């Protein structure tokens, strides 16, 4: 409402100045309008600061309130809950201090879940990085159908984890699934209980499915990074007689560094939070062979109503993610942030 009024007064002010006949007056009028505009001063003087603050509040408040109410408050609540024994009803009275944390950290299922998360973090990067790079370099060649190929490679990433999980669950069915059938055809046979039903294979099977699902993201990001490598570098290396292989190793990979490091960071955070795919494929089984921290806390919270334990597990999940993020930032991402010109200089040299 007020802004409409302000606009009209401001407009009247501007149109009024040329009306004061002499061109000089008009010029001064415009000159004075300049400072007036960014900080609507004049009669509003002290009011302008207030008005600015009101505007800021008006613009930021909805997002901030939503964020506070549904993100910050629940997170604080999680920390609070983690200090109580609470079954989901009645007031929080049974204060147990750090006991929930002790019990979570002494729980073999949780430590197993933490291990699985860390294995998935390492395996995701170790598998997807070389594969993703290879496919990105492959698709970066000028070839027929390049655009279609780039679309296709990204399809699994767009599907919901649930949908991808359900399809793979069917493919991996023991005996009747197509994967067992194909193994049969070449004279091999899958494990008796199926890949997802055998504790030794289950986690690696989940990792294979995750690789299928998320490889496309790595490829698309690496391809974008490759677009940023100046064409001249390839020409120069060509003139210097470098082989294709040398060119990739000495020019492409180093210049792709920042993209790779950021991608690995995203992949790591995602792996630590893994829930959907595991829940669909194995529910954490068989014999807790594929639990993750997220499946642990959901099981404790919603199936057993151990809200205190679940909250403690979620706080630990956050701390693990935060520590890894900080370490990563400190030792790996720092290079990108600290000295963004370094790589460019190297290019020029």
């Amino acid at each position: 409402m007020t802004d409409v009024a302000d606009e009209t007064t401001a407009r009247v002010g501007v149109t009024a100045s040329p009306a004061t006949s002499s061109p000089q007056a008009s010029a001064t009028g415009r000159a004075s309008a300049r400072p007036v505009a960014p900080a609507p001063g004049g009669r509003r003087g002290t009011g302008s600061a207030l008005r600015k603050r009101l505007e800021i509040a008006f613009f930021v408040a909805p997002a901030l309130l939503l964020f506070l109410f549904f993100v910050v408050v629940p997170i604080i609540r999680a920390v609070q809950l983690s200090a109580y024994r609470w079954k989901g009803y009645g007031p929080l009275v049974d204060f147990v201090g750090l006991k929930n944390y002790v019990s979570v950290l002494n729980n073999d299922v949780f430590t197993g879940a933490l291990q699985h998360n860390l294995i998935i973090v390492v395996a995701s990067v170790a598998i997807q990085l070389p594969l993703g790079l290879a496919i990105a370099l492959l698709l970066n060649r000028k070839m027929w159908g390049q655009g279609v190929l780039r679309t296709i490679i990204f399809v699994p990433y767009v599907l919901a984890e649930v949908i991808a999980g359900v399809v793979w669950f069917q493919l991996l069915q023991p005996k009747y699934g197509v994967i067992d059938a194909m193994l049969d055809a070449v004279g091999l046979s899958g494990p008796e209980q199926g890949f997802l039903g055998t504790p030794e294979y289950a986690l690696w099977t989940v990792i294979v499915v995750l690789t299928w699902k998320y490889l496309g993201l790595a490829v698309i990001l690496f391809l974008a990074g490759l677009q940023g490598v100046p064409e001249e570098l390839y020409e120069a290396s060509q003139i210097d007689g470098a082989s294709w292989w040398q060119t990739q190793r000495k020019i492409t990979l180093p210049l792709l560094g920042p993209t790779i490091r950021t991608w690995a960071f995203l992949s790591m955070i995602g792996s630590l939070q893994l829930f959907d795919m595991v829940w669909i494929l194995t529910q954490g089984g068989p014999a807790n062979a594929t639990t993750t921290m997220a499946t642990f806390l959901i099981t404790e919270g919603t199936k057993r109503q151990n809200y205190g334990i679940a909250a403690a597990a979620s706080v630990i999940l956050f701390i693990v993610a935060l520590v890894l993020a900080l370490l990563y930032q400190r030792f790996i991402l720092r290079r990108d942030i600290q000295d963004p010109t370094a790589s460019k200089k190297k290019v020029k040299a």
Partner: protein
Amino acid sequence: MSAGTLAPTSATSPKSPRTRGARRRTGKYTGGNPLVYALALAVVALTVGPVLYGVLGGFRTNAQLAESPAGMPDPWVLFNYTGVLTNPNFWRYALNSTVIALLTTALVVVFGIMAAYPLARYKFKGREQLFTVFVLGLLFPATVAIIPLFILITDLGMGNTWWGVALPQAAFALPVTVVILRPFLQALPDELEEAALLDGASRIGFFWRILLPLSGPGMVTVGVLAFVGSWNAYLLPLLLLQSDMKTLPLGVADFSSEYSSDTAGVFAFTSLAMIPALVFFLAMQKRIVNGLQGAVKG
């Protein structure tokens, strides 16, 4: 031959024919190598194979699937798909998914652009700190807060409602939205704002008439990311929604466990459930990819 023109993403448009020719001779661009095509084909087969198998599986009977799991439909049957399409639950879940995704997207885009505006174009004390609050939000996955969130939403009486899912989803999508939109708004030239203010527009007027129309692409990007995120979400709906309020991912998971012996039916249900996301993706491909790349570049 048309290889050069087939790559729309190639950032080297104003190239002279000479350099173009030179490029083709370099090792990097030896197209037409059969080995390269063979490898690319293998990658494609592995990527779409499972999806395609699911779609084709929907056209087979369970007897066919059991007899030869790797075969083609013979004969093609439609009843799996018609069965799903005449299943009122499927449409109910699709409606729930759509409404929740639209609500989430609307909240994220409107609140996100509003918050990004002062953070990008106002100078005030505490601006960077305010921005940091949102950036820190990136560090908190919904999983960490999921249990208290579940309790909070239930206490608010929004336990089994569209809004109960859309509001927290929007809240958790806000950080990435603000992080993407702020540099976008900062990149708009200052002259535009000066000119507008000189012409007597208030800052709100500037926001409404100039900034908003110009930031369309940025809003579409964050909107698409929010929509796809909501459409595919599983954990929060799993905790909050029951019976006929369920979304498609929940419906797919339910169907798969309830009728696990009806493999062909599961394939049909799953294939139909993935169509909206795929169509949306194909239509918005550039935006999604740009958004993700923008998020990575920071």
